[in-house]
C-alpha cells in the first residue's frame, strides 16, 4: 500500500504541475476496498495538495482542511423501550431517512474554530447536524433522538468526528487516515475535502471510492438477491448434505 501511495502522490504532483488551473488535488490510496473472507476492517489514506492558482501565485498563508467521508445512504430507526402496563415495550421511535450509513468528519483543527455555525450546519460538518437534517418522522422527543442516534452510531464505529484527523506534512500537503471498521457498509463512498482560510471555504474537491465484496462473498451476496429461490434451495441442499455427511463421518 505504501508503494501505491508513493506512486499516486508522484502522479498527483506531476499532473498538478501540468494543470495550473487546479488549486487543489485530492486522492485516495485505494479506489476499491474489497471485502474478502477474513476482512476485519481497513484503513484508507486520503491525501491532497493545495496547488498554485490559475495566475501561478504560490499558495501562501495558513490553510486548514475539513474532510468528510460518507457511505451509502439508508433508512435507520431508533426505538426507545419504556415501561407500560408493567412490561417493557417499544414506546416511541424516530426515523432517519437518507442517513449515510458511514460518516467521518476529519479536520486539521476543531471545526468550531475554523468555520461559523451556519456553514458547519449547512455543509453537515457536525454529526448532530446530520442527524437533525435526516430525521424525517418521530413520535417522541426529537432532540433526544438526535443525540441517541449519534451515540449509537459512534458506538458501532460508523460515525466519528476527529477534530485533529487531518495532518499537514508540508505547508500545502495534507493527509488523513480513515479507518473502515469490520462492519463497514458496502457501496459507494464519497470523500470530500474543503480548504479553509480565514473562516472561508476557498476550494473543494471530491473523490469516490468503493467498498465491495470480492470473490466468493460477492458471488453469494449477488446470488441471494438475483436468484433467491435457487439460493434458498441450494441452502437446503447444503444442509441436507452436511447433515448426511455428519451422520456418515461420525456414525457410531
Amino acid at each position, binding site marked *: 500500500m505504501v508503494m501505491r501511495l508513493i506512486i499516486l502522490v508522484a502522479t498527483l504532483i506531476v499532473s498538478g504541475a501540468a494543470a495550473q488551473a487546479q488549486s487543489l488535488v485530492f486522492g485516495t490510496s485505494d479506489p476499491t476496498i474489497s471485502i*474478502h*473472507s*477474513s*476482512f*476485519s476492517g481497513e484503513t484508507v489514506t486520503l491525501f491532497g495538495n493545495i496547488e498554485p492558482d490559475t495566475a501561478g501565485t504560490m499558495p501562501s498563508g495558513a490553510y486548514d482542511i475539513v474532510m468528510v467521508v460518507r457511505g451509502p445512504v*439508508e*433508512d*435507520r*430507526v*431508533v*426505538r*426507545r*423501550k*419504556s*415501561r407500560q402496563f*408493567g*412490561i*417493557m*415495550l*417499544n414506546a416511541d*421511535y424516530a*426515523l432517519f431517512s437518507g442517513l449515510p*450509513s458511514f460518516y467521518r468528519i476529519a479536520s486539521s483543527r476543531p471545526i468550531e474554530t475554523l468555520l461559523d455555525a451556519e456553514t458547519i450546519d449547512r455543509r453537515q460538518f457536525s454529526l448532530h447536524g446530520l442527524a437533525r437534517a435526516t430525521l424525517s418522522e418521530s413520535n417522541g422527543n426529537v432532540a433526544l433522538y438526535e443525540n*441517541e*442516534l449519534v*451515540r*449509537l*452510531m459512534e458506538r*458501532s464505529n460508523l460515525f466519528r468526528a476527529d477534530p485533529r484527523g487531518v495532518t499537514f506534512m508540508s505547508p500545502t500537503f495534507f493527509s488523513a487516515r480513515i479507518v473502515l471498521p*469490520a*462492519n463497514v*457498509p*458496502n457501496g459507494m463512498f464519497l470523500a470530500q475535502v474543503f480548504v479553509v482560510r480565514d473562516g472561508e471555504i476557498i476550494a473543494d474537491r471530491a473523490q469516490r471510492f468503493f467498498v465491495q*465484496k470480492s470473490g466468493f*462473498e*460477492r458471488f*453469494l*451476496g449477488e446470488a*441471494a*438477491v438475483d436468484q*433467491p*429461490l435457487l*439460493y*434458498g*434451495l*441450494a*441452502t*437446503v441442499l*447444503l*444442509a*441436507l448434505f*452436511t*447433515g*448426511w*455427511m*455428519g*451422520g456418515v463421518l*461420525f*456414525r*457410531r
Partner: protein
Amino acid sequence: MLIYLPIAEISVNLFFLVGIGAAIGFLSGLFGVGGGFLLTPLLIFSGVPAPVAVASVTGQVVASSTSGALSYLRRGGIDLQLAGFLVLGGFGGAFIGVWIFDLLRTLGQLDLAISFGYLIFLGSIGTLMLIEAVRSLIRSRKSGPPPRRMPGQHNWAHGLPLRVRFKRSKLYISVIPVIGIGFFIGIVGSLLGIGGGFILVPALVYLLRIPGSVVIGTSLLHVLAVMAATCVLHAVQSQSVDMLLAFCLMVGSVAGAQFGASAGQYLRGDQLRALLAIIVLGVAIRFALTLLLAPADPYSMATLGFGEAL
C-alpha cells in the same frame, strides 16, 4: 480467526460460530430437539441482525435434523405416513405463520409478540415437562421402572372422523388432530423461528399416544421438512438467509449432535426430560426478564431492510 458473512455484512469469529453450533448440536443430539430456540437468541446477542439470524438458523436446523432423521430411518423409527400428514399441516401452518408475522410487523409490535410467544410456549411447556419428569423420577425412586402408558388408552382425539390406520405406530386414529398439530407447530415455528420439536414431541405422546419408538424420528422428519420450506420462504421473501453463517453452524452442530446422542445413552429418559425442561424454562425466564426489567440501554437502532418495517 474472523470470517466475513456476506448477507449479515459483519465479521464474526469462525471458532465462535462453529463452537456455538457444536454446543447446540450436542444439546439437540442429547434431547432430540432442533435447538433453534437457543441458537436464534444467541446469534442476535452476538451482533447478527435479527432477520438474518432467524432465517439462517432454519438452515442449521435442517442439517442437524437430517443426521438424526436418517439414523432413525435406518432403525425404522419413523412413521412415514404419520409424518406425511403432519408435514401437510405444517406447510399450511408455516404459510399462515408468515402471514401473521407480516400482520404483527405492520402493527409495530412484532418484538413484543415474539417475546410473549417465547415466554408463553417455553414457559408452559417447560413447566409441564419439569412436573412430569420430576413425578416420574420420584416414582422410579419409589418403585422401580415407571408403568408404561397403554397405547390402547383413548381420549377425545381418538373419537373424530376420517380415521386412518397408521401401521408403524400401531394406531387407528383420525387424521384431523394429526394435521391440526402439524398446522399449529407450523404457525408457532415460523412465527418464533424455531423448529418446534420440543412442543411436537409432547403433543404426539400425550394427545395422540404415538409410541415412543417412532415419536422422535417422526418429529425430526416433520421439523426437517417444515424448516426446509421455511428456509426457502425466507430466502425468497426477505433474502436474509446467510448461507455461510448457516454452514458454519451446521458443521459444528452435526458433529456436536453425534456426541450428544452418545451422551444421551448414559442418561435415563426422565432425567433427560428434566434437564431439557430446565433449559427450556431458563430461556423462558430470560424472555420474561427482558419484558419485565428495564434494559441498561433503552435505545436501540435498526436498519430498515431485509423486509423490516417500522
